[in-house]
């Protein structure tokens, strides 16, 4: 946390210094009524928001799973897209999410977390359809497959 605390009047008098401090990570500003305000890069704010949102989601999911009962759609709430997964996959999701949160915090970047969530959401959508689900989760039987030739015309 920076030691410099700008005053409301510095918005006019020390604009360059204030913006420079904000670009560097964080600028603190004391309003006339004593309220402490901060200015920071939007990417940093997004990182903090995303880390907070998914840390809460992880804690909530851990609490639901610890009940040893399959969570209902209403239990899952905004995580209802996870309903297609069984207990083993949910454990794997939580483990992946935890690792991605640690990586995002360490990197100061949500890219790893976004990638992890994208892959899990994509998987969930593929499993929504019963036929796709049965093939993706089923055993491989050579007799189930036929030659797929190169498309040569529309």
């Amino acid at each position, binding site marked *: 946390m920076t030691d410099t605390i700008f005053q409301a009047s510095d918005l006019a008098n020390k604009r360059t210094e204030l913006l420079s401090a904000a670009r560097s990570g964080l600028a603190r500003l004391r309003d006339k009524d004593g309220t402490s305000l901060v200015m920071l890069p939007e990417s940093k704010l997004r990182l903090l928001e995303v880390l907070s949102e998914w840390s809460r989601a992880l804690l909530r999911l851990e609490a639901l799973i610890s009940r040893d009962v399959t969570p209902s759609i209403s239990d899952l709430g905004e995580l209802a897209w996870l309903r297609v*997964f*069984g207990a*083993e*996959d949910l454990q*794997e*999701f939580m483990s*992946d999410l935890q690792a991605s949160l640690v990586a995002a915090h360490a990197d100061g970047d949500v890219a790893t977390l976004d*990638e992890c969530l*994208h*892959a*899990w959401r*994509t*998987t969930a*959508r*593929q*499993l929504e*359809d019963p*036929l*796709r689900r049965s*093939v*993706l*989760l089923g*055993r*491989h039987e*050579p007799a*189930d*497959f*036929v*030659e*797929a*030739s*190169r*498309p*040569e*015309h*529309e």
Partner: protein
Amino acid sequence: MSESAYDPLQPAKRPGGKPDEQPKYRVLVHKRFRRLYEELAPRTGLQQAQQFWDHVAHDPGSPAPVASTCILKGTAGRPKGPGWSRTVHYEVTGAARIDYQFCDEYQTSTDGDLHPVVAILTINYSSH
């Protein structure tokens, strides 16, 4: 009057022509998705369909140059058996989604030849 080589009713050749190399992988599709596979070129366009086939037939394990791919998570992403890859999810510009696994040493029977194959597991055309 000289005859022009241009024929407006003749479709343009595929950009780049046919691939020079023989396909490395034999490409298979699950019977339940054969009909959807036949719709690939009409739905996505011939060029996109051929780009998909060329990609999986030559280098299914590398990132696709013209499509977005990811590996499915959890049980759906696990290899179907020893030697199989994880499940690759290939997205043709939002128009089609294809899941496949590949195996470098596939054997249909115990005394059969070992050969590389790609198994297309699922195809869908709904947008996410």
